[in-house]
C-alpha cells in the first residue's frame, strides 16, 4: 500500500460519505411526503420506457441539436465511467486494472473512452455556445449549469492530459487505441522531460480527475445535475399509459381532512422525485401557451419553485413537523400562476424526464377550491349552474334535449336498443354554434345507417369543468349520477363530439364504476369511412388547416383520425400550422379556462388563431366545441370572419356526403 492508496481511501470515503449523507436527506424528504402515488403496474412497459428513453435517449433526442449534445454527454459518461472505475481500482490496488477483459476488448474500450472524452468535450463547447451565445429563452441563466459545464469540461481535459503524459512516461501497449491522447502526447513530447517527470505529471492529472469526480459526487445532490440520479427512476415511474385520469378523492373516508395540496408535503413522493429530476432545460416552458402569452405561469419555474419550497421547509419536513410547514401559495406560486394553466399538457409531452406538471397544478387547485373557496369570481356561477342545472352555463336542465327537436332522434328512454349512445355534452346541447355541429354529426350517423340514441334530459354535465378547476366533490356528484344512468341502460358504446367528455368518460369514469367503449366522433367518422358506410363525394375546393384539441391529441393520442377524415374529402388540401400534433398549441379553453376571464397578456386563442391564419387556409377545422368557440372568437378578433371559417370536421364531412 502506498501513501496514494491511503490518501485515496481517506478522500473517497469522505466524499462518498458526505455525498451519501446528502442523498439520504433527499430520500428522506421524499419519503415524508404524504400524498399517495402508486406506480408499480405495467412493469414490462416500464422497463421498455426506461431502456428507450434513458439508454436510448429517445425523449431527449426529440429536440435535435441539444438532444444530440446531451446524448453524447450521456453515452460518454457511461463509457468514461468505466475508465474512472479502473482508476479508482488501480489506485487502491495497482494490479487491479481491467485488462482481464482481454487484449482486443481492452483496446476497444480504450478507444471508446478516448473517443468519447473528445466528443464530450466538443459537446461541452457546444453547450457553452448555446448557453452564452444562442441563449434560448427557456434555458435562462444558471450559475449551477455553468459550474456543471466547467466541471465536465475540466474532467475531460484532465483525462486527456493524464493519458497523454502516461503515454509519454509509461508507453503503454494500448497507446495506439488512445488516438486523440496519443496525438496530444506527440505534441507534448516537445517539452522534453524525463519519463519519470511525464509519469508524475500523468499521475498528477489522474488525481485532478479523481478529485473532480469526487467533487462532483458531493456537488450533485444540490445541483440540477441531480437529474443524472433521479431521471432514470423518474422515467421508469412515469405515468403509464399516457391517457391518465386525475386521481380520485375518497370523500367517504372520514380520516381525510385535507383535500388537495396546501403544503408541499400534501403532494406525493413522486412529485419530489420530479423536482429532483428537473434538468432546467426549459422545454416545457417553450411550449407553454400560458407562458407564451405573458401569463406568470411557466411550468419550469413551477417545478423549481415547488422544489425551493421543499428545501425551505427541509428541517420541518425531516422532523415531521407538518403543521409548521409553510404553504405552497407564496410570492412565486400565486393564484394567477395556478389559474393560468389550460391543462394542455404540452409541458409534460415536452419534458425529457417525464415530469408531470398538471398533477401538481390540479392538486393545488383542489386545495384552493375545496378547502379555501378561492377561485376566480366568475367560476362561482359555473359551479352553481353545474350544481342546480348540471351544466356550466345557465340553461335549464329541462332544455338539454331541445337541440334535437324535429330531428327524429330517439332518447334512450324511448329506445335503448342501439349501436351507440350519442353523448351530446353541454356545448352541443346549449351553445348555438355547437348545436349545428351536433346536428351535422347526427345527420352523418343517419346517413351511415348507425342506430343511435341520446340521453336527452337524463344527460348531465360530465363534471369535467369542475374537476379541472379543482372541485372534485362537485365532479363526483355529476360523474356518479351519469354513471348510474349509463349503467341503468347497460350502455356499452359511446360516441361524443367533445374531447373533454370523451376524455372524462373514457379515462376517468372507470374509477367510479363506469366502463364503456368511448369514441371521439373523429374516430367514429374515420371508422365509418373505412367501412364504406360514409362516402364523401362532393368536392370541397378549399385549403383546410386542422387545429389539434389537447384532450384529443396530447391526452389521448388521437392525431391521425381527424386528419384522415379531412383528407377523405374530395378536393380538400390539408395544411399544417407551425405547431401541430403533439407540439400543437392550445386554444386557451382547457383546464376550466373556458369559463375564466383572461386579463393578463395576449389572449391564447388569438395567438393560436394567428398561427392558423398564417397557413392561408380558408377553413380552420376543429374537433372540439371549446376549440370551436375559441378559434371562432380569434378569427373575429382578427376581423377575418369574412375570409376564414371555423368548422367542425363533422360539418365538413356532412357537407361532402350525399
Amino acid at each position, binding site marked *: 500500500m502506498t501513501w496514494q492508496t491511503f490518501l485515496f481511501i481517506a478522500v473517497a470515503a469522505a466524499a462518498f460519505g458526505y455525498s451519501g449523507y446528502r442523498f439520504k436527506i433527499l430520500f428522506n424528504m421524499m419519503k415524508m411526503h404524504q400524498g399517495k402515488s402508486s406506480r408499480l403496474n405495467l412493469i414490462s412497459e416500464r422497463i421498455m420506457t426506461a431502456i428507450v428513453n434513458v439508454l436510448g435517449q429517445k425523449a431527449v433526442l426529440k429536440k435535435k441539436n441539444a438532444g444530440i449534445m446531451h446524448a453524447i454527454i450521456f453515452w460518454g459518461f457511461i463509457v468514461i465511467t468505466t475508465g474512472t472505475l479502473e482508476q479508482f481500482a488501480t489506485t487502491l490496488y495497482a494490479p487491479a486494472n481491467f485488462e482481464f477483459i482481454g487484449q482486443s476488448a481492452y483496446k476497444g474500450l480504450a478507444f471508446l473512452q478516448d473517443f468519447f472524452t473528445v466528443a464530450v468535450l466538443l459537446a461541452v463547447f457546444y453547450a457553452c455556445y448555446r448557453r452564452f451565445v444562442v441563449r434560448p429563452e427557456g434555458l435562462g441563466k444558471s450559475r449551477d449549469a455553468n459550474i456543471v459545464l466547467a466541471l465536465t469540461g475540466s474532467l475531460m481535459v484532465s483525462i486527456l492530459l493524464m493519458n497523454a503524459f502516461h503515454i509519454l512516461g509509461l508507453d503503454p501497449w494500448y497507446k495506439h487505441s488512445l488516438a486523440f491522447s496519443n496525438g496530444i502526447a506527440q505534441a507534448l513530447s516537445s517539452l522534453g522531460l524525463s519519463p519519470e517527470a511525464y509519469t508524475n505529471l500523468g499521475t498528477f492529472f489522474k488525481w485532478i480527475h479523481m478529485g473532480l469526480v469526487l467533487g462532483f459526487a458531493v456537488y450533485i445532490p444540490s445541483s440540477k445535475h441531480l437529474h443524472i440520479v433521479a431521471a432514470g427512476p423518474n422515467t421508469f415511474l412515469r405515468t403509464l399509459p399516457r391517457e391518465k385520469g386525475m386521481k380520485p378523492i375518497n370523500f367517504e373516508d372520514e380520516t381525510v*381532512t385535507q*383535500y388537495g395540496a396546501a403544503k408541499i408535503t400534501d403532494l406525493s413522493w413522486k412529485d419530489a422525485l420530479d423536482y429532483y429530476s428537473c434538468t432546467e432545460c426549459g422545454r416545457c416552458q417553450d411550449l407553454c401557451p400560458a407562458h407564451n402569452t405573458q401569463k406568470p405561469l411557466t411550468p419550469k419555474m413551477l417545478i423549481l419553485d415547488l422544489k425551493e419550497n421543499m428545501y425551505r421547509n427541509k428541517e420541518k419536513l425531516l422532523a415531521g413537523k407538518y403543521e409548521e410547514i409553510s404553504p405552497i401559495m407564496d410570492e412565486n406560486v400565486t393564484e394567477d400562476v395556478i389559474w393560468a394553466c389550460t391543462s394542455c399538457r404540452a409541458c409534460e409531452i415536452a419534458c425529457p424526464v417525464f415530469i408531470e406538471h398538471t398533477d401538481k397544478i390540479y392538486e393545488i387547485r383542489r386545495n384552493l377550491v*375545496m*378547502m*379555501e*373557496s378561492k*377561485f376566480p*369570481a366568475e367560476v*362561482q356561477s359555473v*359551479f*352553481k349552474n353545474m350544481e*342546480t*342545472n348540471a351544466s356550466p352555463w*345557465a*340553461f*335549464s*336542465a*329541462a*332544455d338539454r334535449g331541445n337541440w334535437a327537436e324535429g330531428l327524429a332522434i330517439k332518447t334512450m328512454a324511448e329506445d335503448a336498443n342501439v349501436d351507440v349512445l350519442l353523448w351530446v355534452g353541454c356545448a352541443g346541447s346549449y351553445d348555438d354554434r355547437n348545436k349545428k355541429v351536433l346536428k351535422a354529426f347526427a345527420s352523418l350517423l343517419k346517413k351511415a345507417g348507425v342506430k343511435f340514441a341520446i340521453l336527452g334530459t337524463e344527460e348531465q354535465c360530465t363534471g369535467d369543468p369542475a374537476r379541472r378547476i379543482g372541485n372534485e*366533490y362537485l365532479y363526483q356528484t355529476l360523474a356518479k349520477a351519469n354513471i348510474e344512468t349509463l349503467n341503468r341502460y347497460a350502455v356499452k358504446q359511446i360516441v361524443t363530439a367533445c374531447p373533454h367528455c370523451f376524455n372524462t368518460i373514457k379515462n376517468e369514469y372507470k374509477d367510479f364504476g363506469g366502463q364503456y367503449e368511448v369514441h371521439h366522433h373523429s374516430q367514429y367518422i374515420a371508422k365509418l369511412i373505412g367501412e364504406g358506410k360514409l362516402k364523401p363525394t362532393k368536392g370541397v375546393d378549399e385549403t383546410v388547416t386542422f387545429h389539434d384539441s389537447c384532450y384529443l391529441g396530447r391526452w389521448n393520442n388521437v392525431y391521425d383520425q381527424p386528419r384522415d377524415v379531412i383528407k377523405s374529402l374530395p378536393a380538400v388540401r390539408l395544411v399544417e400550422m407551425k405547431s401541430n400534433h403533439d407540439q400543437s398549441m392550445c386554444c386557451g379553453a382547457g383546464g376550466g379556462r373556458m369559463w375564466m376571464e383572461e386579463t393578463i397578456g395576449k389572449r391564447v386563442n388569438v395567438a393560436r388563431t394567428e398561427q392558423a391564419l398564417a397557413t392561408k387556409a380558408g377553413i380552420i377545422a376543429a374537433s372540439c366545441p371549446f376549440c370551436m368557440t375559441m378559434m371562432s372568437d380569434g378569427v373575429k378578433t382578427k376581423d377575418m370572419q369574412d375570409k376564414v371559417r371555423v368548422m367542425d370536421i363533422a360539418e365538413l364531412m356532412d357537407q361532402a356526403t350525399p
Partner: protein
Amino acid sequence: MNIFVCIKQVPDTETKIKLNADATGIDSAGIKWIMSPFDEFAVEEGLRLKEKNAGSTVTVLSAGPARVVDTLRTALAMGADNGIHIELPENADNNMSAKALAGALKKEPQVDIVFMGKEAIDDGAAQVSQLTSEYMGIPCVTVALAVEYSATSVKCKREIEGGAFEMIEASLPALIAAQKGLNEPRYASLPNIMKAKKKEVKMLKAADVGVSDADQKIRYKGLQLPPPKPAGKKISGDPAAQAKELVRLLHEEAKVI
C-alpha cells in the same frame, strides 16, 4: 352578537314554471330548489359580521315545507352555526311567513340583528322584511347596499329612485334587507359542507310560533302562465324602407305609437 338570517327556498332561476292541476300554485315536481340569491347576500353579511365579532353566532331561519331544510343546510355549509325550520304549508303567503319568522325570533333570548334578502325571486313581493320587523317591533332598512356597524346602531346605505343613495341610521336590534352588491357571497368549502351535515336544525310547528290558518291573507284562485312570446319579425329592405316599415308596424300592429 346573536345574528339571525332569514332565508327562503325558491325554484332555480332556470326553472320552466308549470302550474299545478287546479292552477292555485306552481307544480313543484322536478324543480331544483335554491336559496333566493338576495338571501345569499344576507347570509354572507351575517357571516362577515360574525367574523368581525368574536364569540358571535349566526342562526339561519326558514319557513316552509320540509324541503327548505336543504336550503338551511346550504347556509350552514357557508358557515352559519345553527338553523331553525318553521314548518308552514306550501302556499304560505308573505304575512304568514313574516309572522312565523317573527314568532320564532321572539322566542330567542336575544336578537341583536336580523338579515334577509330584499325580496325573494319567486314571487318578488319584497314584503317579508318589513312585515317581520313590524311583528317584532324593530326598525327595518330595506335595499341595503352597505352597512357600517357600531355597538348600538347600524348605518345603512340604501338605493332610492333615480339612482340616488341615502344613509339611514337605525338602533339595534334592527332588520336589514340586502340588495345585490352588499357583498360577494362565498362558496362553501368542502370541510364546511361536511360539518353542515352534522349541525343542528331546530324544528318548530306553526302553532309554536303563534301562527294559524287565519294568518294566510292571500289565496290564489286561478293562475295563468304568460302567453308564449310570438316569433320575431325581420324587416328587410334598405334603411329608409326599413324605418318606414318599422313605424308602420309599431303604429298599426303593435299600436304603441
